[in-house]
């Protein structure tokens, strides 16, 4: 009898108790980091090696197709990649095809150390291009005919970097930082299929399983998976930041979910079993 009550109680617990539990689990590693090891996946390493091997002067595009809501994962990703890019003799183009992007791109550009790099010469923020799939296709086709000014209002003619940025054939590597599976697919359709551009999908974790087949088929150059990918990249480039900081709390909270699912199901089946016995 006592056992039945326990199962019953377990099933009816106030969710607010669970919320408090989660808050505690998240706060502990933030105050006292545990420093659980982060294994590096082959996908992340492939991106790092590719950036390292790019010939000097190559154009790298970072498409900020993200939003405020997804910034918690896309932000660390974008910053980890940008930090590394700024250390290399590369030309960096920030652009976005989702309305929230240019501002967040600007924010990332402001937050990362830029070394000797000069705006307009080594890097640029081209702002927002509307039209979704159409905007992406038009950008790959001819950048300068499409856009006439950057996000800060400078005409493109005044930006020396733009001499090297004409169309998709100039993009040595193309990153997208996004929460949208559809955005990644648009690049597969509009940049990879026609121009064989090397597209790297910096996508939030939940989108990864849906884009893996494109990676497997060679249509995506690589995938940077959520904040975990950001953490891995930070470790590879020896500049630990937000991604690494997130990792412990992520570990513990995910573990909490696993435990809750197991206990919840145990309560459920315990209840079911009890029901069956009563019927007898």
């Amino acid at each position, binding site marked *: 009898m006592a056992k039945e009550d326990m199962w019953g109680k377990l*099933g009816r617990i106030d969710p607010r108790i669970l919320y408090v539990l989660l808050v505690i689990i998240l706060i502990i590693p933030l105050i006292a980091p545990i420093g659980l090891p982060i294994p590096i996946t082959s996908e992340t390493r492939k991106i790092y090696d590719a950036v390292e091997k790019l010939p000097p002067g190559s154009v790298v595009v970072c498409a900020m197709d993200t939003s405020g809501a997804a910034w918690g994962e896309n932000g660390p990703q974008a910053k980890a990649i940008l930090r590394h890019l700024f250390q290399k003799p590369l030309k960096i183009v920030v652009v976005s095809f989702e*309305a929230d992007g240019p501002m967040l791109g600007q*924010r990332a550009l402001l937050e990362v150390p830029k070394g000797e790099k000069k705006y307009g010469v080594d890097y640029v923020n081209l702002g927002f291009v509307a039209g979704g799939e159409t*905007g992406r296709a038009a950008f790959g086709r001819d950048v300068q005919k499409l856009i006439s000014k950057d996000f800060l209002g400078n005409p493109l003619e005044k930006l020396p970097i733009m001499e090297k940025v004409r169309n998709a054939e100039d993009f040595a590597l193309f990153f997208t930082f996004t929460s949208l599976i559809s955005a990644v697919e648009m690049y597969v359709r509009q940049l990879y299929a026609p121009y064989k551009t090397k597209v790297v999908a910096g996508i939030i974790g939940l989108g990864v*399983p849906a884009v*893996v087949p494109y990676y497997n088929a060679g249509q995506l150059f690589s995938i940077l998976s959520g904040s975990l990918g950001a953490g891995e990249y930070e470790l590879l480039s020896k500049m630990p930041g937000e991604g690494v900081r997130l990792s412990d709390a992520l*570990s513990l909270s995910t*573990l909490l979910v696993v435990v809750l699912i197991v206990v*919840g199901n145990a309560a459920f089946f315990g209840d079911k079993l009890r029901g069956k016995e009563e019927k007898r």
Partner: protein
Amino acid sequence: MSVLTRREIAVFMTAFAGIAVIADYFLKVPVLNTAVADLLRWGVILASFLLLWGTISMLRVHVEVVRKKTPNQWHYSTWLIFLMAVFVAVSLVGGLAGSQSRWMYDNIYVACSSTYYSVLGFYMISASYRAIRARTKEATLLLVVAVIIMLMNAPIGGAIWQGIPALGKWIVDVPNTGASRGYIIGLAIGAVILGIRTLIGRERGYLS
């Protein structure tokens, strides 16, 4: 004039633009390819007008709420319109990339929207406990896979059992790819049929 008002004109425009864009992909005809490149840029311009329209129609809804003084609602809508106006004013003066508009954007918009969606993290916790059940064989399989993946994602998984990271990676790379690929091919076929239907004018929902 009455001919122009007909829906068929718009259907014809859709079909014409669509067929040109498709032909451009498969045929190497310089005249066509240049024309379609221009058409795409036109599309981008029209799309930004639609974005503009979307914002303005939303503003109209809130103006209406304020005008009618809808109970429990109009105060909020007034505040919304006010903030919208402040943002517009600030970015007209200091530029969209200027420090004032960035301040509002970062500290109000990004802070709120990221919090708004992060609340879901809490709900995941309560739902995992209270509703997610291995009620069928399929759901059981799903949950077993999910647990392995979660343990793989958490660096702690490898510490619990060394095989977890490798097993998780295999699941993502092999079974996940297989099923997801079937799903994608099916999705592509559905999208193509829907696309054909749109271009031949049998799907006109967008022309309301």
